[in-house]
């Protein structure tokens, strides 16, 4: 995909097609190597017989504290989840902080405590870190970067190429809670709703599915939402993904807020959800395994994989029509992760 813009716009950061153009048309072109090439959530490397997953992510969420969590929770859970959906057991994280001059120490401590709590819940150690302070006005409060390393158990193999027609698509919980909670917490929209971020580590859900077997591919629907994650799958695997609108779990508050704002929950980020494509014969057991855990209580089978039309995501609407679900084009939405 070619990058045809002269300057970087917010669309390049939204996780949709413009982001893809930036990553593939600039970074991959300049930095190309076999480990980077697959552009997965985490890179897979092998070291003396041990397979490792290696990932990094930066967090620029505004506001830093929001209902259900903070930038600290997000920075740990987001990276843990990128490792977990690659099929790895998360082990170590690094943490880098870019702090704006004048940032309250009490807030920084609160963020660090959230990170400690999240790391403990996910069973990872924050093993190293870095701190930079920039002049007032040169950063918006606080940015956090985390890098994570995890190990893959022998035999674990989750890749888009393994997905085939007939497989089922599972989602571990409701869509879009995080994105909508943050958008509302910003206060720009003058909307009030009782919506909390879903930020959480999904490593246990992923491990439970891997133990059952039959898992082809996993992903966490963050920036760009479910629609964008499944479009990437459809493209990489050369399959069609067919979703059933009636089966999509969306909280009534989130559905209502989305309706008012004209946003489709399919494109709104979650930070504690897991999408899994599993073999049809494993689907019932996988759903039961997800639902038996509190984090997966609202899990659902939301669709299936087909042969045709290749590379597209389709939605069977509640009304009985069928339409395409495209990848996010890049909306000027606020920073949510």
């Amino acid at each position, binding site marked *: 995909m070619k990058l*045809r*813009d002269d*300057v*970087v*716009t*917010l*669309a390049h950061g939204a996780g949709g*097609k*413009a982001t893809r*153009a930036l990553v593939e048309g600039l970074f991959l072109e300049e930095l190309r190597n076999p480990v980077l090439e697959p552009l997965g959530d985490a890179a897979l490397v092998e070291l003396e017989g041990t397979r490792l997953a290696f990932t990094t992510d930066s967090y620029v969420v505004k506001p830093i504290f929001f209902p259900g969590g903070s930038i600290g929770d997000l920075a740990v859970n987001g990276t843990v989840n990128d490792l977990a959906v690659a099929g790895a057991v998360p082990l170590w994280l690094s943490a880098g902080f870019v702090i704006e001059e004048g940032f309250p120490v009490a807030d920084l401590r609160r963020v660090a405590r959230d990170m400690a709590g999240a790391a403990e819940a996910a069973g990872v150690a924050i093993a190293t870190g870095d701190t930079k302070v920039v002049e007032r006005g040169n950063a918006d409060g606080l940015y956090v970067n985390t890098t994570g390393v995890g190990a893959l158990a022998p035999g674990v193999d989750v890749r888009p190429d393994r997905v085939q027609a007939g497989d089922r698509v599972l989602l571990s919980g409701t869509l879009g809670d995080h994105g909508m909670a943050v958008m509302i917490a910003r206060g*720009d*929209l*003058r909307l009030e709703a009782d919506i909390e971020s879903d930020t959480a580590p999904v490593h246990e859900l992923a491990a439970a599915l891997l133990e059952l077997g039959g898992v082809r591919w996993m992903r966490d629907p963050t920036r760009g939402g479910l629609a964008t994650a499944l479009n990437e799958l459809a493209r990489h695997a050369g399959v069609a993904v067919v979703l059933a609108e*009636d089966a999509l779990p969306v909280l*009534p508050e989130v*559905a*209502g807020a989305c*309706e008012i*704002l*004209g946003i489709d929950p399919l494109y709104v980020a979650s930070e504690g959800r897991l999408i899994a494509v599993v073999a049809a014969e494993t689907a019932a057991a996988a759903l039961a395994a997800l639902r038996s855990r509190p984090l997966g209580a609202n899990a659902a089978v939301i669709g299936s994989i087909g042969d045709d*039309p290749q590379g*597209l995501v*389709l*939605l069977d*609407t*509640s*009304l*009985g*029509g*069928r*339409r*395409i*679900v*495209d990848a996010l*084009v*890049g*909306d*000027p939405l606020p920073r949510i992760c």
Partner: protein
Amino acid sequence: MRFLDEFRSGELARRLSREIGAQVEPGREVRIMEVCGGHTHVISKHGLEDLVPDEIDFLHGPGCPVCVIPMGRVDDAIFLAEQPGVTFATFGDMLRVPGGRGSLLQAKARGADVRMVYSPLDALELARRNPDRRVVFLAIGFETTAPATAVTLLRCREEGIGNFSVFCNHVTIGPPLRAILDSPGLRLDAFIAPGHVSTVIGTGTYDFIARDYGRPVVVTAFEPLDILQAVVMVLRQFREGRCEVENQYTRVVRREGNPRAIAAISETMELGETFEWRGLGWIERSGLRLRPEFADWDAEVCFELPGNRVEDPKACQCGEVLVGAIKPWECKVFGTACTPERPIGTCMVSAEGACAAYYNYGRVAMKA
């Protein structure tokens, strides 16, 4: 959400779909233009074309306010946004619309202070909070959004706020409909008229369509079931040999509209001699401008705009799409040179544009 589910019941949709099937005369095509981009969006998003027989053909009209803004006006907007000390505010849809010099989003990336707002009152609030900035609000939309701009202007005058102005691109719905009806090679049988704008102007505006042009009109709300019901109402008019303006949106729309909203518009705005519409060209007395009493808040008076006319790109067939002469995918550049990420024409930019609706939702089942 209870109020959503009630209007999106699959069972009711199937019932209406059966009724449409029963009303339609086999083999006789009925071309219905839904005027409003909101309707186009709902039809595509809910896959309504799958619920009606092949005889029913939805044509997509000019009622997407973003789609009808000509490129020259976008360039004027960018010019305003780039003036020193200016904070430029508008609706999110406008940000990606390409003019001759790129889009507002690109101007923002180059350093212009461009903000997305959900209401002109939010733009006025920006002016209150930033007295050292000159806040310019790009107002677009039919009579639907004009009252909000009008109320903002009235409040602005009342509070004596000096650092706020409106770049007015409001348009009216009647003239473009007449232009379409007068266009050669017209191929449409009935209208689904926009619900939201009718809450303001009432249903009388459409009388000339039934009376002078012999086309039935059904003023329609925006839920998928509403649109299916409107199709039933259109078909009934044909079967019963009637040709009138009917109101499907009785839960909100009254024949006389909303007199207070109309009064607010007339207090602050007046019809200009002519306004350029993308794809439709110049249409007399179709655009609203601020009244001279509001010159202090009129960006076209406060700033010297370049006002250059920019020809639509040669390859772009937005104009033919907007009058229903061609389907979006019949355009030469649809989905190839023109996509939502690199739009050439405005119909591909806004979520309400016919081309974007087809590109985003409908590429599987394009009926020729």
